[in-house]
């Protein structure tokens, strides 16, 4: 892959990590590196990035000045980050996990310096100059996103209900026939009533699960600047047989409301009897794509 690749580290101003270009390339010619962009923020203290491996060991994660903003970037070996290479990489569970965690680690570290807008995984340019051009064209959008998420964090909430144990009456094989092979009178009706009862119980559980999920989401949404529903993880995904995820949601919450959110979650656990799991604070990944 060929392209314009600036020889300088691209970082100007006090936000630069100050690594020199020769160390960056470790003998790799310019055309062989691409610029990976993790996030965009207003300001960056290079210290927060020190020691982060990013996506390519040995190449520093650094700041790149983009007009009034700073991008968090890293040179990566171009050959290892081509489209084909990505297809391979993301089809390999271990490799996908490594990339996702590395991306997340850099984004989270940068967020220590102020509002940080994560870019989608695998945003790559042929060099720093190309990255700068492309990002600068979107300055207004980034500025709006950063204003929106300032002083906010994302909190994930997952709600689970216990899985009903399979009812023996519905699945067990028929009991052995009584002596003489006669079925007791009324057995058919009893059977039908049992089936009806099972069906009603199922409907009831179903309604209750939906209602619980909606109640919890409504209560937490009231404390949030914005809320998103994510797709619940099926039992085959979670590998959990004893409980069922009925809500997977995420909320954009100011630091002021954080304690109220935690209290609300505790209250909802108590009131609904459902398991309510809170994760966070996250960099607001789920709330930067819609500005």
């Amino acid at each position, binding site marked *: 892959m060929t392209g314009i690749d600036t020889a300088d580290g691209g970082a100007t101003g006090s936000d630069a990590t100050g690594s020199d270009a020769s160390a960056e390339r470790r003998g790799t010619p310019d055309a062989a590196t*691409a610029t990976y962009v993790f996030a965009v923020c207003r300001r960056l203290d290079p210290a927060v990035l020190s020691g982060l491996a990013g996506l390519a060991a040995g190449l520093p994660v650094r700041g790149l000045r983009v007009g009034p903003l700073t991008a968090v970037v890293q040179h990566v070996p171009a050959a290892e980050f081509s489209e084909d290479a990505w297809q391979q990489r993301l089809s390999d569970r271990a490799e996908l996990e490594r990339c996702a965690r590395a991306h997340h680690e850099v984004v989270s570290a940068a967020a220590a310096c*102020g509002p940080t807008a994560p870019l989608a995984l*695998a945003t790559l340019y042929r060099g720093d100059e190309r990255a700068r051009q492309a990002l600068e064209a979107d300055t207004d959008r980034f500025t709006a996103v950063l204003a929106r998420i300032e002083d906010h964090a994302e909190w994930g909430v997952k709600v689970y209900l216990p899985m009903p144990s399979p009812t023996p009456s519905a699945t067990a094989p028929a009991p052995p026939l009584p002596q003489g092979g006669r079925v007791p009178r009324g057995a058919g009706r009893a059977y039908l009533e049992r089936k009806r009862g099972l069906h009603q119980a*199922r409907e009831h559980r179903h309604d209750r699960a939906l209602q619980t999920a909606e109640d919890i989401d409504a209560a937490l949404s009231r404390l949030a600047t914005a809320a998103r529903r994510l797709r*619940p993880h099926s039992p085959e995904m979670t590998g959990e047989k004893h409980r069922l995820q009925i809500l997977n949601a995420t909320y954009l919450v100011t630091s002021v409301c954080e304690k109220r959110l935690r209290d609300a979650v505790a209250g909802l656990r108590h009131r609904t009897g459902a398991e309510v799991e809170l994760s966070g604070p996250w960099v607001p990944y789920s709330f930067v794509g819609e500005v």
Partner: protein
Amino acid sequence: MTDVEERWAAPPANGPTTSNLADILERVLDKGIVIAGDIKIDLLDIELLTIRLRLFVASVETARKAGIDWWETDPALSSKAARNELREENDRLRERVEALESAEEGGPPPSRSPDTAGAGAGT
């Protein structure tokens, strides 16, 4: 700026240390700002099925719609799954009825057996 330093004096927004892969993936893979790069990676094209991660590349809109289908796979909640259960039980009951009838009549099992679980019970 001191007010900024103060505001961010709280621990940085690192995902919880217990972040499981699913939590990270559904944010890193599917969220964040999408801008055109020089290298085109369409995350939606990636065959993640092999690792059961298709869920994480569903758009939120799709997820919202699909989000209500979680009971489809749960026999305790799904009427479809329940129907399958019912069919299996029906088959078992038919076998029983045949066995019963042939035991009562002392003859061979009839070629057509009534559907015990059907409307025949007429209550």
